[in-house]
């Protein structure tokens, strides 16, 4: 009894420590120009990072809040997987907030209080145990990111984001409401295996709604169009939070609802394959698009789209495998969730790097950077870690999750033969995507940090604020650590996955290869270290000279341009990209318009407007016609009553 009291007291104080400071921070936005809010938010982030240990220490991490809403209670229920997600997301959040408070943009009170709000809503959404909390928290995440996207401009990108995520939100509302009705309980923990009660058709519909609903936030085709504009139009920290923490929320809740609530009692192969193809197409699209963007944040936006598509691909493969092999299902789900976590770490690192670069140079296009590695070696080093993780180069963390993904794809001989055909295609897709994004990241890094400075801003970068490198270093270290010590992390997550999805086998059952990321990483590092050490032993002369310029002198305009860099791939894949040449006056350049905007969104918008104009004509302004509407309605209604 005493134990129970203590447990609940611990939980209460933990949750209070997690949510009260940011709640105060929301209000205290203007105090000391936001510093107070930042501090409070950082404190809670640290508390949030301890979620996993607390979960370990406390059996049954559940709590119902004393306040209820019209639709039911607010309650949280943290399982193992959730606690891991909360911990890592909190870490990422903390780093972004710390960087935000140190960034050159100075303290922005509104941003401070809104990041508090975002923290609260993201964490609540991950931990939520009741329908209303999930939905409210989820939509508040959208709203807050929408507000944080304000960069003082016209804000077209923001409302596009808001509308698209609202469409997704509506789908989620429908799905959750339906499940609520079927289950008769507002508590998500009562929903386990709800699919059995819902029937096959309803389950499939709900799963599709969930995937597409969360997919709007993750950039699933064709709902990705807000991403590049939002990421490039908003303050970088907003984009960073959006692509990391918010995506984590989406992935986790999607996973929990699909695999824990709906479950896979019915045959999910067909919807799984459909979603898988959609995700694969999204991944390819994102990879290809990121190749030809010029703004670093757009590159990262499309890369987020690609990464998140890989995650949703894994989750949908989880559906496909659900019948055939539990081990494989555990493996592929683990791959997806781990990739989401890894992505949040390296993508936040890259976003912060981009912010720092933009900050010190005052430029916003990779064609105007260059040579920053010389002037800021430390920044370039952490950036390299981030880029390497993004490109899934061993021994970084990105590699581990891609390795798991490929492992799961290679173990697919358990499937029925007609589904097996899909797998080579997916392997090929992962390979192509991986290389295209690697090209894209090489381009991003190369043109940002290497070569000669291409603009005055890049040649004389401003000094960075003191301390702003710290979060970058921490994140870079996390990238390396999560890569090296992936096995323990995988084991814990796998326990969480199997627990949540009701799988009886661990991922190791399906793992056909032997690989130890730690040893591999150490081998690489060791070999390189030995080589370096060996070269130090025998010293030799070094001279510094100009780059060979075929006899002339080179200036910065003679470097390869970023457009030129991607040109060969654009030419090879020209049917995909279409005509990219643009002519402005007597200058030619390359440009790209989103075909989804051109062929889907714009016509849909026009259709609505045309319909609106047609309908608007009934408002003629003439009272006689208004009266005749009443007359006609009355007569028609009376006649209908008479006839029916």
């Amino acid at each position, binding site marked *: 009894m005493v134990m129970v009291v203590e447990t609940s007291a611990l939980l209460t104080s933990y949750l209070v420590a997690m949510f009260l400071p940011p709640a105060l921070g929301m209000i205290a936005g203007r105090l000391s120009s936001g510093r107070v809010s930042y501090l409070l938010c950082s404190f809670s982030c640290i508390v949030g990072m301890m979620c996993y240990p607390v979960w370990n220490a406390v059996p049954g991490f559940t709590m119902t809040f004393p306040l209820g809403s019209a639709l039911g209670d607010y309650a949280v229920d943290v399982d193992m997987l959730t606690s891991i997600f909360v911990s890592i997301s909190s870490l990422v959040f903390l780093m972004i907030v710390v960087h935000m408070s140190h960034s050159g943009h100075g303290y922005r009170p509104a941003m401070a209080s809104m990041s508090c709000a975002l923290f609260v809503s993201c964490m609540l959404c991950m931990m939520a145990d009741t329908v209303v909390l999930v939905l409210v928290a989820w939509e508040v995440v959208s709203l807050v990111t929408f507000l944080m996207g304000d960069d003082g401009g016209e804000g077209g990108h923001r409302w596009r984001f808001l509308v698209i995520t609202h469409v997704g939100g509506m789908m989620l509302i429908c799905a959750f409401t339906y499940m609520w009705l079927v289950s008769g309980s507002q508590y998500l923990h009562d929903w386990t295996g709800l699919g059995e009660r819902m029937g096959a058709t309803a389950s499939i519909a709900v799963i599709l709604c969930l995937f597409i609903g969360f997919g709007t936030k993750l950039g699933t085709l064709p709902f990705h169009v807000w991403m590049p504009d939002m990421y490039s139009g908003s303050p970088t920290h907003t984009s960073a939070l959006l692509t990391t923490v918010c995506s984590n929320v989406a992935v986790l809740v999607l996973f929990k609802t699909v695999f824990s609530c709906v479950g896979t009692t019915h045959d999910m192969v067909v919807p799984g394959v459909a979603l898988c193809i959609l995700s694969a197409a999204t991944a390819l699209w994102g990879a290809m698009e990121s190749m030809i963007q010029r703004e670093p944040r757009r590159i990262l936006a499309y890369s987020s789209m690609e990464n998140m598509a890989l995650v949703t691909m894994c989750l949908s493969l989880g559906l496909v495998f659900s019948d055939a092999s539990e081990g494989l299902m555990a493996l592929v789900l683990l791959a997806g969730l781990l990739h989401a976590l890894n992505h949040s770490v390296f993508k936040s690192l890259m976003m912060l790097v981009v912010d720092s670069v933009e900050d010190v140079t005052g430029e916003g296009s990779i064609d105007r950077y260059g040579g920053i590695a010389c002037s800021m*070696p430390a920044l370039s080093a952490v950036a*390299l870690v981030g880029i390497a993780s993004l490109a899934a180069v061993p021994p970084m963390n990105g590699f581990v999750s891609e390795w798991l993904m490929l492992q799961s794809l290679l173990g697919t001989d358990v499937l029925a033969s007609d589904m097996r055909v899909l797998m080579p295609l997916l*392997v090929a897709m992962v*390979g*192509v995507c991986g290389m295209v994004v690697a090209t894209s990241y090489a381009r991003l890094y190369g043109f940002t940090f290497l070569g000669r400075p291409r603009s005055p801003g890049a040649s004389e970068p401003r000094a960075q604020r003191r301390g702003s490198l710290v979060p970058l270093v921490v994140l870079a270290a996390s990238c390396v650590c999560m890569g090296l010590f992936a096995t323990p992390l995988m084991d814990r997550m796998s326990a969480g996955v199997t627990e949540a999805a009701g799988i009886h086998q661990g991922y190791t059952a399906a793992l056909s290869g032997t690989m130890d990321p730690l040893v591999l990483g150490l081998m690489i590092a060791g*070999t*390189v270290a030995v080589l370096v050490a060996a070269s130090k032993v025998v010293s030799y002369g070094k001279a510094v000279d100009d780059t060979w310029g075929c006899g002339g002198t080179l200036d910065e305009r003679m*470097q390869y341009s970023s457009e030129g860099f991607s040109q060969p791939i654009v030419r090879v894949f020209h049917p995909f990209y279409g005509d990219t040449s643009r002519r402005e006056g007597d200058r030619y350049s390359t440009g790209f318009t989103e075909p989804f905007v051109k062929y889907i969104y714009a016509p849909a918008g026009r259709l609505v407007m045309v319909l609106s104009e047609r309908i608007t004509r009934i408002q003629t302004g003439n009272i006689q016609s208004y009266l005749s509407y009443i007359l006609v309605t009355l007569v028609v209604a009376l006649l209908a009553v008479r006839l029916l």
Partner: protein
Amino acid sequence: MIPTVIGILQAVALVLVAPLVSGIVSKTKARMQGRGGASVLQPYRDIRKLLGKDSTVSGSTSWLFRAVPFVCMGSMIVLAMMTPFIYTGTLAPFGDLVAVVYLFTLYRFSMVLGGLEGGSAFGGMGSSREMMMSVLIEPALLLAISTLAILSGAGTDMGDISESLSGMGLLAVGPALILAGASFTITLLAENARIPFDNPSTHLELTMVHEAMLLEYSGRGLAMMELSSMVRLTVFMAMLGSMFFPWGVATTAEPVDILVSVAVTSAKMLLMTVTLAAVESVLCKTRLFKTPNLLTASFMLSLMAMMSLYIL
């Protein structure tokens, strides 16, 4: 203990034999062109010479430029440890075929970044073309090796695949293996910047890919870059010889087996080297934008290999 020693020895052997392979290719090519050619040991001499020289670096480069050769060399050495060459018991329980493919990515990635360092048009051009080709090479490579993994049914460990395939005997020879082998051969040429994809012996800006990225390196850096690319060629050959056609490779650490394996592997390597030289002499370098045709063919071959495995 003994297997580990043999594993280390075969990795060392692989690295050491790499210049020789290059030398033999050059010599054979020269003979085919009716020239005497340099000695087969010339690459060793080149590397020794380069290692002893001072290096000159461009003023516009950063620390990364100097780090790249080490990373390239390091990744190739690690790769050498993972490749079954003479003996299937590699040092690679820490890595598998996926890791191999991604190690190639690491190598290429760092080389490309090194190429972008100099700030001249050449480096960028080389990097750009390299990436263009790799977009098609890499998936083909992944698929080809994956086909082997599935064909052998021995998981994704390179040594196990090799061992299992050699144990299967002629049963393993089927459409999947042939198609995957063909694909891998094309990949080998493309990956190692051989004709018809690239000309390793030219410095003409319109034709070169790989060399353009190395243009700014000198001295010790260049030595490591050259050596690592030689190792890469040898690793590919070793993979082709010991994984796609693994018969004769030692599956146990018995001295007899090892000796037999050394002999067989040497013969295989020699055959492949001469064939490579012959191919390079017969074919000519294609236009850059023609290369995707062949690369796509390789990609399709490997895809078909994997498909045939699933369907048949």
